[in-house]
Structure formats: structure tokens, C-alpha cells
């Protein structure tokens, strides 16, 4: 069983602050992290390996700084790690990154299963999984909450609106996973130290045979503005009875408690 996890290293969305003057998000200096759902993908890959044997590899496309974070996935259990990078990585769009990732996956040789998170925490788009499936010409299912792989193929369960759907796919296949599928393991100290010594293979567009013209972005970021929330922020820090009294009084003052609602 040859499994590849496609992971993304992104800014820690939770740590992004807004510039008070321009109301633009400040992305400089924000710590990076492995996108949450991609750890679920790694966990599921490792469980698949425990069941069916084989090898788990991880591929990420990102800026050179993504390298360190990739080690978290090695510590979890990835046997090989590949970083696809480019000096102008931040200008690349989904189409360009998709071409690089597809070329990287092809270069890995025979693959049975490609796993990824349902979306990345920064973009929350969910585009890369199915885009890669299209580019690679493999069947795929997105938003899978339960995965049962066997030697010939896999059964994937997902929610679509009010329905629960179950699919069977032959290999090679691409599956994107939701957070509830599993609880990603936390590597121990030995695994973390071990991961720091493992090599990470670096690939660039030319190594992958992707021509520079192919990377010309089809989508350009024209602007990013923060959504500023204006709230009153009136806080009561009194003892519970007093705080509760003040709150209920405040709510009554807003006219939202009126006894006539029932």
C-alpha cells in the first residue's frame, strides 16, 4: 500500500492580528503550522499502513520555511517527506501549486492512495483535493468522515446535506477527510528528535519538469481586508450573583428579554 499525504503549511490563522489603521490582516511574522485537517490525513494514512502495510510519504508545496513544520508529520510517522518549493511561492495560485503537486505525486511512482485534509485552515476552500484528482485522472471523494481501505480499494462515507453517502473506489484514489474522522496522534519526544534528523527532499519546478510559463498565476490576489467587529465589550467581573443581576438588567435594557415572548 503506497500512501501519499498532501499537506499544507499555513499561517496559524488563530494568531493573525488586524492592523488597527488599515484593518488589513498582518501576516508578517505570524507563526506557521501544519493545517489541522492534514494531520487527520496523516493519522488516517498511518492507520491504513498499520492495517495493510506499505509506506506513507508526505508531500507539501510551500515556501522554504515550511520545511521545519513538515518535521511534525515525519514525527507522526511519515517515512519520507518532500517539499516542493519556489522562491516566488507566495505568488503561486491553486492552479500553479496543483500542477507542482501533481507532478510531484507522479514522480513518486506507483501510488495507491492520496489523502489530504478537506481544506486548509487559511483558505478553507477545499479546492486542492479534487483539483489534484482531476489533474491526476484518479477518482476521488471529498469530505470523508469514515474510511475503510482494503487490498483492492476503499469504502468512504461522507455527509452531503441531509444524506449519508457511501462510495467504493478502486486504487489509485484520492480522498479528502474531515476533522471528525480521527484524533491525530501526538508524537513522543523520541519521535520528535528522530524526525529532526530525517532528510527532507526538496523539489523545484525544474526538477519536476514544470515549465515556468505553467506557473504563471491564473488568479491574483488583489487585496485582503480584515473583517472588523465592533462590539461594546462590557464585562462584568463581579461575584456570580451580582454579575448575573447586571447582565440580566443590561439585557432587559436592550429589550430582548420581554416577558411577552412566550
Amino acid at each position, binding site marked *: 500500500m503506497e500512501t501519499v499525504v498532501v499537506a499544507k503549511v499555513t499561517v496559524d490563522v488563530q494568531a493573525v492580528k488586524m492592523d488597527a489603521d488599515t484593518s488589513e*490582516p498582518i501576516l508578517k511574522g505570524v507563526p506557521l503550522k501544519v493545517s489541522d485537517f492534514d494531520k487527520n490525513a496523516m493519522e488516517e494514512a498511518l492507520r491504513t499502513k498499520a492495517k495493510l502495510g506499505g509506506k506513507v510519504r508526505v508531500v507539501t508545496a510551500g515556501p522554504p520555511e515550511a520545511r521545519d513544520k513538515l518535521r511534525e508529520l515525519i514525527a507522526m510517522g511519515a517515512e519520507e517527506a518532500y517539499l516542493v518549493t519556489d522562491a516566488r511561492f507566495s505568488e503561486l495560485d491553486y*492552479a500553479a501549486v496543483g500542477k507542482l503537486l*501533481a507532478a510531484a505525486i507522479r514522480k513518486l511512482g506507483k501510488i495507491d492512495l492520496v489523502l489530504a485534509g478537506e481544506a486548509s485552515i487559511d483558505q478553507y476552500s*477545499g479546492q486542492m483535493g*479534487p483539483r489534484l*484528482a482531476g489533474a491526476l485522472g484518479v477518482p476521488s471523494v471529498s469530505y470523508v468522515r469514515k474510511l475503510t481501505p482494503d487490498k483492492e480499494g476503499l469504502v468512504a462515507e461522507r455527509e452531503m446535506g441531509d444524506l449519508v453517502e457511501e462510495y467504493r473506489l478502486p486504487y489509485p484514489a484520492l480522498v479528502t477527510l474531515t476533522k471528525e474522522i480521527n484524533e491525530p496522534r501526538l508524537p513522543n519526544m523520541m519521535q520528535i528528535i528522530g524526525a529532526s534528523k530525517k532528510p527532507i527532499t526538496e523539489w523545484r519546478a525544474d526538477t519536476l519538469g514544470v515549465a515556468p510559463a505553467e506557473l504563471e498565476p491564473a488568479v491574483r490576489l488583489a487585496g485582503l*481586508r480584515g473583517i472588523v467587529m465592533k462590539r461594546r465589550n462590557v464585562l462584568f467581573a463581579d461575584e456570580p450573583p451580582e454579575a448575573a443581576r447586571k447582565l440580566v438588567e443590561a439585557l432587559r435594557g*436592550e429589550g*430582548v428579554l420581554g416577558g411577552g415572548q412566550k
Partner: protein
Amino acid sequence: MTVLVFSEQVPTGNELLAKAREMAPVLGGQVIALAYPGSPGPEGFYKRGADRVIVPESPHLAGDVPLAENYSAILHQLCEEHKPSVVLVGSTRWGKEVAARLAGLLGCGCALDCTSVSLDAGKTLTVERLVLGGNAMSSEQMAKLPAVLTVPAKVIPCLPEAASPGGQVERKSFELAPPRAASLKVTPREVSGVKLDTAQVVVSMGRGVKAKEDIRIISELARALNGELGCTRPIAADLKWLPKEHWVGLSGTKVKPRVYVAVGISGQIQHIAGMRDSALIVAINKDKDAPIFKAADFGIIGDLYKVVPEIMNQLKTCK
């Protein structure tokens, strides 16, 4: 050039047609609607702005569950034939899967969940999308066409129904490779009766609630306020203490009640993105630094197990 429209949801298809109609004169082309064979009345698309309506036919389209693989392939073939500048797809989970796969087949630009789509006189196509956990709006320009865009329901107002009867629906046969994915079964999801999106009051709980049996404390508060019970992602998705219908957040339900009460919720931005349009926000949390307080109009810094019973007492004395 042509605008191609597709959604498995007829109302969303109608909405996308309004946008396509607006763009077509600038691009100098037609509006083609691909109808989903399962949906009723494809001829209705003529009254909402389509110049042509195509219903796909293939032996591989039989079966109850539509496979994204098939519909990406159909759209791909239509793209080869009509060279559209823009493909508009309805932004359901399934629609996004179809659209993103199509973008992979075409190797073209794609933006999902666009909250606005505008084409200026110089044919520059710009979309907006929520990013960074719903905390920022990203404005994106399509530097090359075609572009595949998905737009959620109710973003674009549809055109009034035209009085003219429109044209004839074209049934078109597509050569599709036998699909590799197979649908095994479809079951209705267990749905609880809660309706968060229309509730006037929502009282939500997060991980500050320590045990499943303590949900009662929060649901009683919700009842006392004539509200519905909501929760965060961990409660619904990880701990599964409450059905998904109670989940408020970017990937749960987005709510905008008159009053939103967050109890024992720290305020992850994905949660805030699901409730920040509420008219009034109240937070109860024992951590004075919890980000939820920045999103709140009124807040109590205190232990919910002590504070909520006191609020219940106060509400009783009010009535």
C-alpha cells in the same frame, strides 16, 4: 465568450443565470445552462436568462447518486466545445467537488465560495471570498480565462421570470468513461428538529461544559430565554454530545439571532465567523482573556457552573 452555468439545485442555478446574463454582453457570448438530469423543469432556465439549456445523457448517468467525476467530465467536454470564459457552479459540497475537479482537468484558475463576482467593462473578472478562518475578505482577480467559480445559494438575486416561453431543451449525449467510483448506499442522516438559522435567540455551549449530562444546564438557559441550543465544533464533531444541527460556525450553521449567548466558549475564529452577525452577543467564560469577550457586547467573567444558575434566578425574578 460563453458563460457556462451548472448547479444541481434549481434555485441556485437560477441565481447563477442572473450573474451569467449580466456578464454575457461584456464577454460577447451566450449563456449556456447545463441542467442536472434529476432536477425538474430544465426549460425553466430559459425564463431565468439561459440562451441554451442542455440536459446530459449517458448510460453512466443512471443511478440515484450523481458522481462528481461524471459531471466534471461533462463540463469539461462542454468547455472543449464552447470555450467558455467563465464556468459558474453552485457552491454546495458536491458542486465544489465538481468545480475543483474541472479546474484540475482544465489546469485553469478557480475560486470556490465566492461571495461576490464582478466583471468590469475591461473584462477583468474579480471575486471575493472569506479567508483566514472567516476573518478577512480576499479580493482575487482572474488573470487568465477560463475561470471556474462557485457561488453559494442566495448570494446573487435571480432575475424575474421572463414571460416568453424560451426555447427547447437540448438533450445531448456525452461519451463518458465508465466511472470508477461506485455509490454503495445512501441513507438519510438523523436530523434533530433544531432550526438555528432562523432562531431569534441562540444559547451555545463549548468545552467549558465539562460533562455531557451538564448540557442540561445550558439547554435550560436556552429554554428560559425562548432560544435554541447551539454548540461549538468540538461538542458536535469531536465529542458528538449534540447532533450537527446544533453546531454554530464557519463549517457548521451560520446564525444571526437577536441575541447570541456563548457559554464556556473560548472564541475560536471559526466559531465567531458563524455568529458574528448576531445583533447582540453575550459571553460567559471564566478566562478573562478568552477571545470570545472581544466579540461580545456583554460578558461575565466567571465559572459557568456558578453564573448560569444565578442568571436563571434573575430571569425568574424578572418574570
